[in-house]
């Protein structure tokens, strides 16, 4: 078995960011597969899954405000080019904050969660 097994990626655009992240793994495997009835599961204990709560709620006021911020920070082509150097990444950065947060949660927060 190699670490690349699950993350093999075709020669698509996206380059180095294309390998399977932990978020990919979570999304791919969690809550999938054959469900075995608890009757046989005499031994099921102590399974504490990370990050189910890290999944994004798609529609919420928070989401709306994030979208609004992103759009408001958007530098449209017809606007001054000089500004975009300073703020061009702002909207995107904001939008992607959540993804980074989740990765942080999953990557570093699991021990903490497990102790709860």
């Amino acid at each position, binding site marked *: 078995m190699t670490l690349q097994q699950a993350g093999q990626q075709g020669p*698509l655009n996206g380059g180095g960011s294309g390998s399977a992240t932990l978020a990919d*793994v979570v999304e791919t495997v969690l809550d999938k597969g*054959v469900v*075995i009835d608890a009757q046989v599961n*005499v031994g099921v204990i102590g399974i504490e899954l990370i990050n189910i709560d890290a999944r994004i709620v798609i529609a919420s006021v928070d989401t709306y405000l994030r*979208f609004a*911020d*992103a759009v*408001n920070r958007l530098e449209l082509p017809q606007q001054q080019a000089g500004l975009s150097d300073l703020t061009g990444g702002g909207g995107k950065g904001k939008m992607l904050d*959540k993804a980074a947060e989740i990765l942080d949660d999953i990557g570093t927060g699991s021990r903490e969660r497990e102790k709860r």
Partner: protein
Amino acid sequence: MTERTTGSQPTGIFLYGVVPADVEPTADAKGVGDQGQPVSVVPYGDIAALVSEVSLDQPLGKPDDLRTYQQLLDGTATVAPVLPVRFGTVLADRDAVTELLTRHHDAFVAALGELEGLVEYAVRGRYHDQVVLAEVVADNPEVTSLREQIVGQSEDATMNLRVRLGEMVSQAVEEKRNADTRRMVETLEPFAERVVTLPPSHESDAANVAALVRSDARDEFDTAVEKLADEWSERAVVRLLGPLAPYDFVTLQETGG
């Protein structure tokens, strides 16, 4: 591997998946848990379960556990059909596993038969936010007008306007996602046995799709995904994950019957 209890530590049998009886894990395959016990099989009739011993006094679900689980199943799926069992399923002992296989032998055999020669791929598109948001602004005069009302004012004063703007943008992005998802499904369907749409996992998702692909059609499928990725390259990144075990194509539910 023989059954035993190590000292006073309670142990259980972690169940990864069900495979045809002729599948054997490689000698170096290690299971979930901090100690990573060897992966072995519990055979019954024409099928077998992939299992490993786990300590019951330590919770599972660390990132490495998920990766181990996925790597074992994905690796298996490239050589044989496999029915993934939901992550976190632990039985009391190997006898309980045998009992499970006995009870559902025929259903498992039938399900494995349907998966013969097939692997899953996940295809995920993620928008370039700046590009897609610019599209939304260009398509919606009302968005532009709301932006103009908001600009230069304090956040508190524009709370309601911003919520309205965000909702409008969010809906517009969702419409784009629906359209792009349909486009992805239509593009991939000719090269797959089955294609299912999965819910978005991120607000910038363009499409999230799983496909069950014949092993001998993998190249054609790859090419179709690449073509779509090229077509979308300005506005989204398309990623192909796989071959995977058929996580999204297993509908069996153990009923306890």
